[in-house]
């Protein structure tokens, strides 16, 4: 008993000591918890939030682009794409082959994906594997998706160009932002943006179209998958501004059709506003597949094509203007007082500089026909396109005065407001010295007098010169933008119209008359008809003024005949035609280029007429009745020509750039047949709103 008692007591002591030790140990643990949960709570709270909260940028919707009738030129289409966050995928190849069980992924798509992930990019940015999933594919991924880490179905807005290749060179397109862009772009502003404008309006107005990035917080799990969207601290993105262009999609389409299969360019302007109504470079290409990401092979084919579909001939292509430059030379001569409308010369078909043996020939010269154009005054020199007259005139004016004068028309400069274009070459003595290291020879002036030699122009520049003549000397800055939803900050406002200095009022009218003769003077006998009359003037119902040109591509040896049959197709002359109509009240001025087309009158002039017909004839057709529409607000219009540009704005306030007439609000419906534009002024959504007019006149 005593023993047992003692032992029990000893055990009790031991148990108590052990328990106290245990309690002390537990207190130690609790101290650790106090430290973690109270003293360092803030640190760990932050750490825990850093684990789970990700600030995701919210990409703004890109502004839409409309033509003057409210037809969408650039739209946003919501699509779903399959993307991978490469950082969160353990084994890419395995993941891709796993996915292959659920949806079809082509080898090309895998190759493209591999190429994308090779390039430097933002970390944790989902990289597209398959763009534009079908509903069925989305469903299958959603069913199986939980098995894959780092695989996401991401919604994105894909730019879509309804007119596809028709308007690509005017509107431009967007492309996926790549590593080169990342270095130069504002990282925050573009944090949610996957596309950036390249080319055309999309590039030029990138800042306005882009909009303002927003952001929100998401909760992610350890695999980086978004579990929940957190409503706190959400900042909504601000959509980019919608733009309305002067472009007339119907005219654009007609112009494309007029060129058909031929390589070339057309630029049509509204002489009053300088607005670009059509800007065509043929062949074009469909920008839509580029946006989703076309296989490199296809891109290489496009880029390597001898027809250069990616090249914008209308704004970037430079060509000798040929005889289309003669009206400018004529005006220069009048301004300088070295000729007048009465003076005549005898055009023998040949011209020699004093003391030189080299013969400069008329375009009509052949070894069997050396007669020249006979007695030629300035007017005839224009409608017959007499080279000899202009050889003489040009050398009298001199390169300096000629260059200075021509510069007023926009030659030798990229003068459009919002179109990136080539400057071309308006050769001067100093330019030649700098570029070629040679002195200027009188022979250069002779060539320049007929738009050959060193001079190079873009179709846009020639259209601008046609517009200036149509305006009787008033230069208006060419532009694409008609209006926008709000002020476009950071962009130049259009330059005020400028009057070309030199020619008198009468000179302009006479020039226009001479150019009308090019088209309309017919049945006058041998070497008396306008050069383009036979081709377009015989049945023309309105007055058109024009000038043809055939720009030589290769030097023809002295005394040799230019024989189209013998020349390689690529070495044939470029066919030019500039025109405007109606001659007394011009609504459209344009230039047409058909590359290696041959004669300007025979090839380019019919194209020009087709385009002008497409623009003017519907207006004439609807002219008698002032276009009443059942649903439209009855509003008398003085003339169908005063057709207001449409406004398709959601907001009430709009800014009209330039001198476009103020649009009249109308309540007519949107979808209307395109054939009779005069009847259907596009609707104005914000009709009641204030409209700010930025008129420059």
């Amino acid at each position, binding site marked *: 008993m005593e023993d047992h008692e003692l032992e029990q007591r000893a055990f*009790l002591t031991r148990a108590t000591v*052990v*328990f106290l030790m245990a309690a002390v140990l537990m207190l130690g643990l609790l101290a650790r918890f106090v430290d973690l*949960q109270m003293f*360092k709570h803030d640190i*760990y*709270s932050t750490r825990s939030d850093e684990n789970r909260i990700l600030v995701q940028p919210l990409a703004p919707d890109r502004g839409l682009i409309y033509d003057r009738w409210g037809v969408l030129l650039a739209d946003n289409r919501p699509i779903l794409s399959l993307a991978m966050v490469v950082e969160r995928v353990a084994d890419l190849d395995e993941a891709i082959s796993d996915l292959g069980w659920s949806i079809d992924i082509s080898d090309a798509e895998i190759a493209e994906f591999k190429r994308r992930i090779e390039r430097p990019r933002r970390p944790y940015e989902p990289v597209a594997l398959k763009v534009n999933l079908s509903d069925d594919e989305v469903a299958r991924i959603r069913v199986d998706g939980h098995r894959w880490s780092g695989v996401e179905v991401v919604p994105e807005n894909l730019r879509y160009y309804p007119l596809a290749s028709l308007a690509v060179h005017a509107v431009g397109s967007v492309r996926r932002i790549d590593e080169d862009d990342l270095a130069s772009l504002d990282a925050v502003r573009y944090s949610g943006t996957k596309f950036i404008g390249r080319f055309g309006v999309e590039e030029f107005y990138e800042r306005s179209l882009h909009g303002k990035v927003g952001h929100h917080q998401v909760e992610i799990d350890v695999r980086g998958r978004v579990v929940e969207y957190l409503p706190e601290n959400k900042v909504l993105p601000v959509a980019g501004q919608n733009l309305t262009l002067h472009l007339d999609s119907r005219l654009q389409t007609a112009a494309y059709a007029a060129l058909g299969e031929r390589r070339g360019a057309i630029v049509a302007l509204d002489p009053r506003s300088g607005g670009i109504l059509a800007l065509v470079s043929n062949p074009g290409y469909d920008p839509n597949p580029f946006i989703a990401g076309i296989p490199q092979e296809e891109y290489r084919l496009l880029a390597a094509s001898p027809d250069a579909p990616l090249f914008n001939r209308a704004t970037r292509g430079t060509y000798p203007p040929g005889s289309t430059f003669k009206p400018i030379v004529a005006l220069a001569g009048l301004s300088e007082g070295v000729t007048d409308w009465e003076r005549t010369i005898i055009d023998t078909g040949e011209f020699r500089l004093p003391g030189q043996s080299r013969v400069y020939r008329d375009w009509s010269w052949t070894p069997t026909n050396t007669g020249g154009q006979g007695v030629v005054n300035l007017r005839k020199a224009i409608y017959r396109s007499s080279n000899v007259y202009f050889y003489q005139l040009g050398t009298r004016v001199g390169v300096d005065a000629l260059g200075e004068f021509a510069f007023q028309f926009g030659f030798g400069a990229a003068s459009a407001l919002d179109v990136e274009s080539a400057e071309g070459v308006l050769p001067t003595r100093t330019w030649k010295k700098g570029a070629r290291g040679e002195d200027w020879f009188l022979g250069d002036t002779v060539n320049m007098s007929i738009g050959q030699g060193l001079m190079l122009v873009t179709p846009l520049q020639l259209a601008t010169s046609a517009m200036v003549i149509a305006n009787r000397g008033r230069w208006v800055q060419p532009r694409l933008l008609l209006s926008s939803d709000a002020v476009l900050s950071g962009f130049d406002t259009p330059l005020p119209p400028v009057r070309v200095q030199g020619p008198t009022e009468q000179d302009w009218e006479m020039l226009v008359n001479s150019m009308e003769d090019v088209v309309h003077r017919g049945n006058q006998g041998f070497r008396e008809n306008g050069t383009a009359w036979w081709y377009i003037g015989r049945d023309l119902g309105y007055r058109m003024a024009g000038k043809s040109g055939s720009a030589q591509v290769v030097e023809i040896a002295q005394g040799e005949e230019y024989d189209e049959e013998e020349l390689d197709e690529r070495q044939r002359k470029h066919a030019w035609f500039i025109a405007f109509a109606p001659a007394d009240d011009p609504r459209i001025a344009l230039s047409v280029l058909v590359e290696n087309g041959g004669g300007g009158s025979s090839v380019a002039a019919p194209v020009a007429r087709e385009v002008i017909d497409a623009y003017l004839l519907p207006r004439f057709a609807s002219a008698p009745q002032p276009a009443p529409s059942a649903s439209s607000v009855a509003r008398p219009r003085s003339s169908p020509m005063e057709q207001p540009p449409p406004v398709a704005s959601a907001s009430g306030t709009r800014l009209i750039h330039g001198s476009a007439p103020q649009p009249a609000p109308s309540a007519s419906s949107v979808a209307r047949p395109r054939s009779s534009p005069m009847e259907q002024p596009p609707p104005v959504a914000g009709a009641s709103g204030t409209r700010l007019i930025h008129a420059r006149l």
Partner: protein
Amino acid sequence: MASDFVRQFPLPGGSRTRLSEVHLDALLCIAVLAVIVLGLVVHHYRDDDTFYGQMLRMSVGLSALVAAAWVQPRQYVSWAPVVYGVSVGLLILVLLIGTTAKGSQRWIDLPGLPQFQPSELTKIAIPLMLAWYFHDRRLPPGLGDMLVALGIIAVPVILIVQQPDLGTGVLVAASGLAVIVLVGVSWRWMAGALALGVAAAPILWMSLHDYQQERIRTLFNPEKDPLGAGWSIIQSTTAIGSGGLLGKGVGEGTQSRLDFLPEGDTDFIIAVIGEETGFVGVLLLVILYLVILARGLRLATLAPNRFGRLLAGGLMLTFFAHVFVNIAMVCGLIPVVGVPLPLVSYGGTSALSILIGCGIVMSIHTHRTGRR
């Protein structure tokens, strides 16, 4: 007086209550159930499958507790060598035919039986065997008895370390050492053994596997490899710390819900509790564990004989060692070893051995009237 401390706990022990007729102890039962319920609440908000699975396992475990409490203590005396022998046999079997999980063989998968870890059985077998060995020896034990006792401990521990499962090995050893402490080995010897252990530390370090060394290194510098070895400890301390005083709310723990915290159902569940219920929840749980320990030790002191005292005390200290090692590991105080939190972590074998242990303690206490 230290002994008074233990006595201060309520004592329904003397009077026969209805619970003691079925050989259960009210306070111990309540504390155990409270811990189980707390764990189930956490599981309920995490995952239905583990919740119902845990319910099932706990039901089985509690039935085993009742059964173990029903058994007469003298039965345990007679079973002790058999149980010990069987468990050593199973450990040998594990090394021969065990199922490999996470790189070590710990499980036996016998046809018709649920998978189980024989090492869990040794946590009962060793205290049982030691209590049996010491129950008729002269006390305090002499050197010879001590060596035998250490041998009894060493055989299964070595087998477990071979699996390799160092964590369980240490805990199994602790269950034996607890009995040795309680049997009355002089403090001097224990201090000497401790000093010897410290002196042998470098040798022990050398004998560790690379991954085990890595775990210990990670403990001191988890940021060295935050996405690898340091991941779990960084995430568990983050979970606990972010819980603050009152926690993020049950089921609202982002660290655990979003799977930043690994093993949230099993070994790291205290981090979930710390995150979701804050310091208050952890404190409550720790108090409940101390109540279980205190009550268990109190029942041990009330045991009518040495066998009962040693067995009950050994089992309760084993239980406590699990609690301490698990919590200390999760909050980054000791290296990560695979030890579940008793009665809370999801898992069957561990809960079973612990509840059986509690049952045995109650059996010892409630069958007292037979005496000596």
